[in-house]
C-alpha cells in the first residue's frame, strides 16, 4: 500500500522558540493509506510538529510538501482546505449542541443563512454507514460518551473531506472498549485510502494500530521503525533515551492486617441507582483496585466516598473504626484520607495559581501551614519545594502557574501534595491518565511507597496494566455492581475484561 506517492512530506522542518529548538531538522513522508505513529515523551516536540502540519505554527525553516507540491500553511483553515484535519486531545465541541449542529458549526456557514440540517444529515448518515460509525446525531454532545464525542470529531473531518487525519493522544480518555472501537474505525479509514497520524505515548496501542513508528526525542527524530519489526521494549528505550527498567511490584502479605476502610452495601438513593450494594474493605498496607469501563458507577462511588455528607448514599462507610457515612470531605481529610480526584483540571488544581499555592489545597487545616489562621508562607514554600524535588518536578518552581506545567508534571504536583505527610488512606482515581511514561513510573512508585508505610489505597482506573501491576486485590464493577474479585496472581486480561463487559467468568 505504500508504493503510492507521499500525501505529505516534511523536509528538514525546524521550529525555534528563541534559542530553543522545539523541532530540529524533521524529515519524513507519509504515503497514502498509512497509519503513522509518532511517539515521544512530554516535551519531545510532538505537539509542535503537529501544529506545524496543521498550520497553527509556521516553521522556522524547512518545507512541507502536500501531494508533491511545496505548500506553506498559514492557518488551520488553510490546512483544512488542503485536506488536513486534526482531532485534538481535548475535543472542540459545543456541548449544548447536537452532533449535527456541531458539524454545521464547523462548516463555517455565513450567519444569516438557514442551517442546512437536512442535506448535512443525509451526507453524515452516509459517512456513518460507510465507516461503521454509530453516533446519535440529535442528542446534545455533552450527554454522549467520550468515545462518541470522538466519533463526532472524526465525522467532522470526513465531512470536510480531509485526507490526512491527525490524532493527538486519541486514546487518553477512552475506555478499553472504546479504544477497540476507535481502532476499528481507524482501520476502516485506512482501507478507504485516508492517511492517518496518531500521536501518543501509549506504546502498546501504537504497536497494535500503526504501520510505521517515528520516535521523537528532544525535538529530533531518533528512530523510525516499521511496526512489525519493533517491540515494546525497544520503543520505550528509544523514547526515554536510556534503558528503561520497569520495577516489579511485590504483593504484600496481608492476611493478618487490620481493615482501614470499609464499605457495606453502598447504594444510590436516586432511582437511577448507579450504585447497587457495593461492599468491600481495604486493609492496612493494601492496594485495592477497582476495574470497570468508565461510567459504570465509578464516579458516583468516588463522590460518595470522598464527600458522604453531600452525596448521600444508602449503606455504611467505616474509616479508622468510625462510622463516617455522614462525614464531610474536611472531616475525612483530617482523619487521614487523601484524594487524587478523577478530573485533575477540574477537581484537583487551580490552574492560574502558583504551584506553591496549589500545595496548600487540602492542607489548609494543618498546623504546619496555618497558624492562628495565618498562612505560613515560608513553611509552605519549603515543604512544597521539598516534596516537588522528591518527585522531580520540571520546572522545579514554586512560582510558575499550574497551567505552565505539562499534564504529567501537574499530576506530580497533585500526587506530591496528596501523599505528603503519609496519609492513612488514599482514593486514587485514574492517577496516571494523560500522563507520560516517566511520570507514570514516578507516580506508581509513590503509590507503592504508601503501601510500604502501611497506608491503604483504593485505586480506581480503567487502565488494566496499571491495575494489574499495582493492585493486591482487584474488584470488577459493571452497572454499579461488583461482578467479581481477584487476588494478585489470578489477574487475567480475559477474565477481567469479560466481567467488565458484563459477562460471566
Amino acid at each position, binding site marked *: 500500500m505504500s508504493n503510492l506517492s507521499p500525501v505529505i512530506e516534511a523536509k528538514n522542518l525546524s521550529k525555534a522558540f528563541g534559542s530553543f529548538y522545539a523541532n530540529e531538522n524533521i524529515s519524513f513522508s507519509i504515503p497514502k493509506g498509512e497509519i503513522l505513529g509518532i511517539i515521544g515523551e512530554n516535551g519531545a516536540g510532538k505537539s509542535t510538529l503537529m501544529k506545524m502540519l496543521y498550520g497553527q505554527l509556521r516553521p522556522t525553516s524547512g518545507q512541507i510538501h502536500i501531494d508533491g507540491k511545496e505548500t506553506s500553511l498559514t492557518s488551520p483553515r488553510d490546512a483544512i482546505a488542503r485536506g488536513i484535519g486534526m482531532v485534538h486531545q481535548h475535543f472542540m465541541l459545543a456541548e449544548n449542541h447536537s452532533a449535527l449542529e456541531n458539524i454545521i458549526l464547523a462548516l463555517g456557514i455565513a450567519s444569516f443563512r438557514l442551517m442546512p440540517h437536512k442535506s448535512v444529515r443525509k451526507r453524515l448518515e452516509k459517512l456513518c454507514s460507510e465507516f461503521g460509525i454509530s453516533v446519535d446525531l440529535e442528542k446534545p454532545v455533552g450527554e454522549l460518551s467520550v468515545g462518541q464525542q470522538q466519533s463526532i470529531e472524526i465525522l467532522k473531518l470526513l465531512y470536510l473531506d480531509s485526507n490526512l487525519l491527525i490524532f493527538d493522544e486519541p486514546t487518553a480518555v477512552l475506555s478499553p472498549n472504546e479504544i477497540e472501537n476507535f481502532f476499528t474505525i481507524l482501520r476502516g479509514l485506512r482501507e478507504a485510502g485516508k492517511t492517518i497520524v496518531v500521536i501518543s505515548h501509549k506504546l502498546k496501542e501504537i504497536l497494535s494500530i500503526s504501520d510505521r513508528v517515528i520516535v521523537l526525542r528532544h525535538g529530533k527524530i531518533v528512530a523510525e521503525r516499521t511496526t512489525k519489526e519493533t517491540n515494546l521494549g525497544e520503543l520505550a528505550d528509544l523514547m526515554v533515551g536510556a534503558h528503561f527498567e520497569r520495577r516489579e511490584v511485590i504483593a504484600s502479605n496481608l492476611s493478618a492486617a487490620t481493615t482501614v476502610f470499609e464499605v457495606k452495601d453502598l447504594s444510590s438513593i436516586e432511582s437511577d441507582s448507579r450504585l447497587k450494594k457495593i461492599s468491600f474493605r481495604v486493609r492496612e498496607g493494601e492496594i485495592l483496585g477497582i476495574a470497570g469501563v468508565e461510567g459504570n458507577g465509578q464516579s458516583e462511588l468516588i463522590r460518595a466516598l*470522598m464527600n458522604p455528607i*453531600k452525596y448521600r448514599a444508602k449503606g455504611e462507610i467505616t474509616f479508622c473504626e468510625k462510622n463516617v457515612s455522614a462525614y464531610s470531605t474536611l472531616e475525612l481529610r483530617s482523619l487521614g484520607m487523601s484524594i487524587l480526584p478523577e478530573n485533575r483540571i*477540574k*477537581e484537583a488544581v*487551580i490552574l492560574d495559581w502558583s504551584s506553591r499555592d496549589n500545595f496548600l489545597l487540602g492542607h*489548609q487545616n494543618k498546623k504546619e501551614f496555618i497558624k492562628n489562621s495565618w498562612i505560613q*508562607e515560608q513553611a509552605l514554600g519549603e515543604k512544597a519545594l521539598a516534596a516537588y524535588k522528591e518527585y522531580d518536578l520540571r520546572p522545579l518552581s514554586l512560582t510558575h502557574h499550574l497551567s505552565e506545567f505539562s499534564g504529567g508534571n501537574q499530576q506530580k504536583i497533585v500526587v506530591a501534595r496528596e501523599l505528603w505527610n503519609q496519609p492513612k488512606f488514599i482514593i486514587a482515581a485514574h492517577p496516571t491518565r494523560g500522563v507520560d511514561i516517566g511520570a507514570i513510573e514516578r507516580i506508581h512508585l509513590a503509590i507503592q511507597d504508601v503501601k510500604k508505610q502501611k497506608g491503604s489505597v483504593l485505586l480506581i482506573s480503567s487502565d488494566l496494566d496499571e491495575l494489574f501491576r499495582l493492585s493486591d486485590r482487584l474488584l470488577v464493577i459493571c452497572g454499579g455492581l461488583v461482578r467479581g474479585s481477584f487476588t494478585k496472581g489470578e489477574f487475567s486480561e480475559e477474565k477481567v475484561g469479560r466481567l467488565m463487559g458484563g459477562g460471566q467468568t
Partner: protein
Amino acid sequence: MKDALLKTLAGLIFGFLGAALISWIVGESPLFVMKVMFESAFGSVYNFGLSLFYATPLIFTGLSVAIAFHAGLFNIGAEGQLALGALAATCFALWFPSLSPWLGIPLALLFGAIIGGFWGWIAGWLKEKRGSHEVITTIMLNFIAAAIVSWLVTKVYQSPIVQSPETAEISEHYFIQERDPLYQIFDGAPISIALLFAIGLAIGVWVLLFKTKLGFEIRALGKSESTAEVSGISSSKVRQIAMFLAGACASFVSFAEIIGSAGKYRLGFSPEYGFMGIAVALLARNNPIGILFSAFLFGALHKGAADLDIETEFVTRDLSLVIQSLILIAVAIAIEWKKGRRA
C-alpha cells in the same frame, strides 16, 4: 505593579485624546476642557479634597464587590447593603446620642456592618438553600432594601422640621466634621477620616484575601468550586461568610456620607455607589489595593465631569458623562491589554 501603572497611564492618555476629540467636535477648545478637568480634580486643596470625598464611598462598595468576586459571586447588591447598613448606623446614633465619639462611632459602624452584612448574607444563604443565583437575589434584595429604607425614613425616623425625606440630625458626638483633621486640612471639603478608614480597610481586605486561611478558601472557591470541595473547603460556609463580608464593607459608606459629611440619613443619598462599585472593582481587577486607585480615578473624573457642565458652553451634563465614561473605558482597555493577543 509597574506594568499596571504604565498601562493605566497609557489608557488615560488615550482617553483624554478621545475627550479632546469630542470637545473639538462640539466646538469647545480641547485645551480648555483639559484645563477645567485637571483644575477641578487637582486645582486646589479644596478641589482635591472633593475628589477624595467622591472616591471614598466607591472604595467601600468596590471592596464589597471584590470580596464577593473572589468567592466567585457577582454582588449586584452593594446598593441595598449600603442603604440598610447606613440607615442602621444612623439609627444607632439616634438611639444613643450621648455616647462618647470613641465608643459611639465604632459601635454605630459595627451595627451598620452587621445589618449590611446580614443583607449580603441572605443572598449567600439563598444560593445555598435554594440554588438561587446571586445576581437575581441581590438585585431583588436591592428593591426590598430600598422599600424598607424609605418606609423607615419617612414613617419612623422622619425629621419633623424639614419637608424632604430625611432623618433627624445625629448628635455632635457622632457628627465629627468640625473636629475632623482631614476636613481642616482640605480647606473645608466634606472629606473625613472615613478616607483613612477606607484605606485601612482596603489593606485589611488584601491581607485577609491573600494572607489568611479564610482568604485562601474564598479564593479557592472563586476559582474552582469543585477543586475547593475536594480539598475539604465548605463552599456553603465560605460563600455565606464572603457575602456577609461584602455587605459589611458596603455598609461603611455611612462613615463617609453620614458620620463624615451629611450628619443625617437623606433618602436617596447614594448616586448608585453600589453599582459604580462594580466598575471600580472590575477596573482594579478585584485587587483591594488597586481599588484605592480606581476609586480615586472615578472620584476625580466624577468631579471633573460635574465642573465641565458648569464651566464650558458646549459640553453639557450628558456630554460630560460621555467624556467621563470614555476615559474609564480607555483605561479599562489599556489595563487588560496583552501583548500579541489575536482575535
